[in-house]
Each structure stands twice: as C-alpha cells, then as structure tokens.
C-alpha cells in the first residue's frame, strides 16, 4: 500500500516532464480483478505501467516503439490472435513484433516477363500481416484498465495472414508451456457471400469453427455457423437461420443446437416485426428441448436521445412483463435492456438483462456495464479513463511541408463520375488525400516519375472501397485519374 501512495507523486513528476499521460482504473468480474494503468505517449515510443489485483498483486510495464517498420513491444502485453471464428489470448512478458501491408490494387500493365499470358490488366499486390512473439507466458490480467502477467513458462509463436482480393488465409503456430496451438483458417468475403472456417489444435485440443452468410437478394440473408468453446468447460454450438427485411417489415427464423456437459439442447425460434415511425414491434417464439415455449412481444420507441422498450413474455399461460430503456447523448449514456439469448449451459433460450452506464466529465470517461456470457453467467465491469496534458511541446515533432517546383495532380472518382472525398493516395513516400471535389496534389522536387499506390484501408471516406483503375506511376504535369468503387 505504501508503494501505491507514493505513485501520485511519481505521476505528477512524470506529467510535468512530458506531454501526455493516460490514466485508466477499474474493477471487473469479467476479467476477475481490479487495477489501474498509466500510459505515457511520446513521439517515438509509448510507455506503460500497471498494478492489478488478480488473486494477489500483479505488476506490469511495457515499452512500444517502431523498429524497421515493425511495431515492437517489450514487456507485458496482451496478445489476441483472432481470425475466422478462432480466438486465442496469451499473456506475455517478453518481446512481440507486428507488421502489416495493405492490399493494394491498380490497373497498370505488369512487365511482360512477370504477367500471365494474355493478361495485362487489373491486378493486386497482396496484403499481409505478421505478428511474432517470444518470452515468458502465463496467467494474464489484461483489461481495458490494467495489463500484467504472472509468468509460468516459456512460449513462442507466429500469426501470419495473407490477403488477396476477396480471400484471406491465416496460419497460427504457438508453443507455450508444453501446449501446442496449430490453426489454419481461410475466409472469403464478397458483396453477397461471406465464408470463413478454421481448424486445428487449440491448446492441444482439436477444434473446428466455421460460418457462412449468403445474401441472395438485398434484404434477405441466410446464415450458418459452428463454434467450439473450451472455457469454462468444453461446449459446441451450431446455428442456422435467415433474416428478411422488406420495407417496414422484418421476419427471422433460426435453429440452434448446443452440446455441453454431456447434454444436447436444440432450440428453434421464429419471429416477425413491423416499424411504424418511431415505434417498432417485434413478436418472437422460442422453444428449446425440455422447456416451455416462450412467446415474447416487445415494443420499442426510439426518440432523439431516448430508447424505451416494453416486453411481454408468455409461457405456460402466464404473462410476465419487463421494461427497459436508455438515454444517450455526448456526455452520458445509460440503458437497461432485455434480450433472449441461446445459452450453452443446457438451459436453451433464456431472457438476460443488461445494464450499461457511461458518462464523461471533462477528459475523464467512466463506464460500467453488465454482460451475460454464453454460459448464462452475469459479469460486470467498471472502469474509468482520463487524459492529462501539460501543454509542453514534444521535441522533434514539428514538420514542414516538403515543397518543390513540380506539381503532381489528380482526381479520385466513383465509376459514375462523382468525386470521392477522402481517397488516400501514396505518391512516392508521401500520402495525400482527395478534397471534396475529388482533387489531390503533391509537390515534387524533380520531374521523374514516382510510384503510386492506393491504400484503400487508409481512406477517410466512410465505407469500404476497392480500386477499379489507377496508374502505377505519376509524372508532374500529367493528371492522374483514379477510379474506385464501394464494395
């Protein structure tokens, strides 16, 4: 405790010497502990220190910086490997490095030597992302408000993801504490179809996970999924269903199945709803193995800042009533909500209640919420975040526009010819953005041609884009024309 009391003095000293400090603190049953963290942002590095209580006091510290293009963290770090329905979280005290390159496409002809016979047009430079780590792993305490690790064994691993147009391939290989995680995954994402699947070993246990969403026409979607859970006990879930939205009417239906603790539960649900002005009505019927069917009618009114919900649940000839509501503004948001969730603890469809409150006082944000996990347990979490700024300027962080005698100009369009504001274009080493008329320009010191790429992931325009056409190089005096489309 004496160490904790001396901390504010230390923080005051640090904040007076540097620019920006972030403070987080909180408590949670979801994460199983309490703690707080201070993070200092410097021009080329981010320093962080944490104290947590997780079955005893745990301490953590880390330094994050860029090294040869790799985002490198030395110290305590949470590593979340998540792709195609598989998730593996690791607590690391060591070194982790990651780097990514966005998928980039253009229509410039490739050199004859490197192109497929008969093909000269649109092509993409594959995107990739890699994360590698080595160090001591063990029990971690990783929350929005503190990061610390209790080391138990040595671990190392690598996650590699490769993207090419609509396809993303992932590979995860981890060895830690004598346990192996070797998982391979693939996902395909197009306008009407999204498929993802992964399988392999997760902490020495075989698993398979997959999901599919198909949208044959606008407003109608069909989905199916399969998932494996290992914590707090082994469980598997399957689901299929459909949603249809036509004007103000919605319909939905689905089948769920869970296998856990030697029990198999099957559930069915079907429902429909209508929206009239600010009022939405939804009626749904739920039935699961060995359970009385539930019929739930809910009416939701959405006003400017307010959302109010009234629900009637009918089961075995008895009615039960519930009310919910929420208020949301820039400074404060609070809500109480009821929903029907298919639980994996053998109880099938159950009504769960969630409470959430968040408010802001100057630069401090305070959050509190309850969440029902897939096993039906209500967990809570409460934390606060604040920023401190001393007003001192950070050295070596002032830049001056490059200038130059020659002007490279261009325009970014949609296929219908309308301009796109917020297109990101990398011209040589500089990144520029198109303005509201779609125009962009950059000054060059000489008349040589420079390479152009269009990193769609950096667009500030809302939505997801793909490049229809873009030149590979730009020369001062020759206007560039880039055509993009929303995906």
């Amino acid at each position, binding site marked *: *405790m004496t160490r*904790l*009391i001396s*901390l*504010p003095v230390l*923080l005051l000293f640090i*904040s007076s010497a540097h*620019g*920006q*400090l*972030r*403070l987080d*603190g*909180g*408590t949670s049953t979801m994460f199983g502990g*309490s703690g*707080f963290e201070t993070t200092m*942002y410097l*021009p080329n590095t981010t320093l962080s220190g944490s104290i947590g*209580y997780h079955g005893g006091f745990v301490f953590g510290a880390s330094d994050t910086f860029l090294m040869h293009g790799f985002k490198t963290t030395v110290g305590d770090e949470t590593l979340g490997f998540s792709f195609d329905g598989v998730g593996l979280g690791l607590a690391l005290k060591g070194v982790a490095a990651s780097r990514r390159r966005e998928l980039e496409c253009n229509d410039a002809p490739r050199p004859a030597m490197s192109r497929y016979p008969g093909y000269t047009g649109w092509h993409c430079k594959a995107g990739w992302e890699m994360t590698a780590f080595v160090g001591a792993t063990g029990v971690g305490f990783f929350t929005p408000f503190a990061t610390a690790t209790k080391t138990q064994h040595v671990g190392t691993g690598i996650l590699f993801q490769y993207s090419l147009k609509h396809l993303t391939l992932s590979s995860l290989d981890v060895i830690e504490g004598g346990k192996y995680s070797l998982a391979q995954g693939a996902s395909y994402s197009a306008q009407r179809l999204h498929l993802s699947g992964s399988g392999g070993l997760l902490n020495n246990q075989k698993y398979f996970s997959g999901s599919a969403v198909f949208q044959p026409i606008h407003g109608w979607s069909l989905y199916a999924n399969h998932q494996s859970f290992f914590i707090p006990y082994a469980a598997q879930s399957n689901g299929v269903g459909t949603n249809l939205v036509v004007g103000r009417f919605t319909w939905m239906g689905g089948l769920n199945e869970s296998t856990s603790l030697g029990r198999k539960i099957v559930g069915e649900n079907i429902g429909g709803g209508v929206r009239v002005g600010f009022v939405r009505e939804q009626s749904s019927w739920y039935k699961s193995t060995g359970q009385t069917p539930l019929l739930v009618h809910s009416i939701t009114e959405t006003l400017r800042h307010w959302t109010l919900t009234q629900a009637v649940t009918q089961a075995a000839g008895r009615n039960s009533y519930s009310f919910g509501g929420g208020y949301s503004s820039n400074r404060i948001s609070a809500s109480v909500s009821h929903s029907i969730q298919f639980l994996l603890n053998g109880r099938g469809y159950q009504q769960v209640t969630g409470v959430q409150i968040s408010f802001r*006082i*100057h*630069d*401090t944000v305070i959050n509190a919420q309850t969440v029902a996990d897939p096993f039906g347990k209500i967990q809570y979490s409460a934390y*606060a975040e*604040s*920023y*401190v*700024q001393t007003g001192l*300027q*950070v050295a070596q*962080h*002032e*830049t*001056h*526009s*490059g*200038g130059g005698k020659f002007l490279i100009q261009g325009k970014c369009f949609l296929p219908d010819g309308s301009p796109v*504001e*917020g297109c*990101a274009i990398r011209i040589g080493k*500089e*990144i*520029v*953005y*198109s*303005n*509201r008329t779609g*125009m*962009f*320009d*950059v*000054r060059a010191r000489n008349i040589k041609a420079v390479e152009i790429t269009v990193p769609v992931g*950096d667009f*500030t*325009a*809302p*939505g997801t884009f793909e490049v229809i056409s873009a030149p590979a190089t730009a020369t001062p005096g020759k206007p560039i024309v880039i055509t993009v489309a929303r995906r």
Partner: protein
Amino acid sequence: MRRLILFVVLDLFLFALAASAQTIAPPTAEFNTKPGKTSRGSFQTQNNSLQAVAFTIESYSVTVDARGPQYHPLDPGVKVELSSTSGRLGPKQIFTTDYRISCDSLPCAVAIKTGMVTGHTKDGMQVRIILSHFAYLAQSKHPRQDILMAAGLMQKR
C-alpha cells in the same frame, strides 16, 4: 481492496485536466501589399490527439458583410498557391503549411480551411473539424481592421 478502488478514483480525478483538440496558429495573417504582388505566409496545424488524423486544405475567397464572413470559390483575380493540400498528421505532430497569395484588386480576404476527419458516429457519419486561417490583404497598415470596418463589424477607435 476497497482502499485500492478509492485510490484509483481519487487518482483519476486528481489528474483530470483539460486537453485540447486540433489547433491552428496563427488564425489570421495581415499583408500590407500592392495589387498583383505576391505575399508569402505560413500557418501551423497541430494534432493534439493521440491518433493520426488525415487533413485536406482548401482556399476560398471571403467577402465580409454585416452577417459575418461569406465563403465562395476563389475570385478570378485571386491566386493562392499552397505548399501542401493534404496529408496525415501523426499524434502530437505540428505541420507547417506555406502559401503565396496575390490579389489583382485590394482589399481582399482569403480563408485557408484545414479539414480533419476526427472519427465517425455510431451510424457511420463522418465527424470532421474545419479550422480556418484568414489572410487579409490591403494597401494599408491594418488590413484586417480596414476590411472589418468597411463591413461594419468593427468601430473606429
């Protein structure tokens, strides 16, 4: 445990000081010049947040009347050359933009607007901050004062 939570809450309020967002400096520049002569100036844009922000810069002619400044595309006799019209500001970065302005007829006022996308709402609507740097050009010692007085927005001392 309770003491620890109390300490955390106390600590957060102890350090809850005001943090500023994006800023531009100086907000105005005045040039005592002649018609058609080029004036050179610069302004700094600072990103005080901890995330990188993309920015675009556009220039407009400004007419000032009793309702305040009215923006419209650059008049035919006004030329503005910017050293940079877009880019990305890193966390805490300060970026200097140089410009050259010439007006065929004086007095004239130009607004150089820097737009920064600072985020999106839950509905996907883009949130953009636009900060202006005003350049006042006239053949006098106090161009800004003269332009505002002519518009009736400032009284003669």
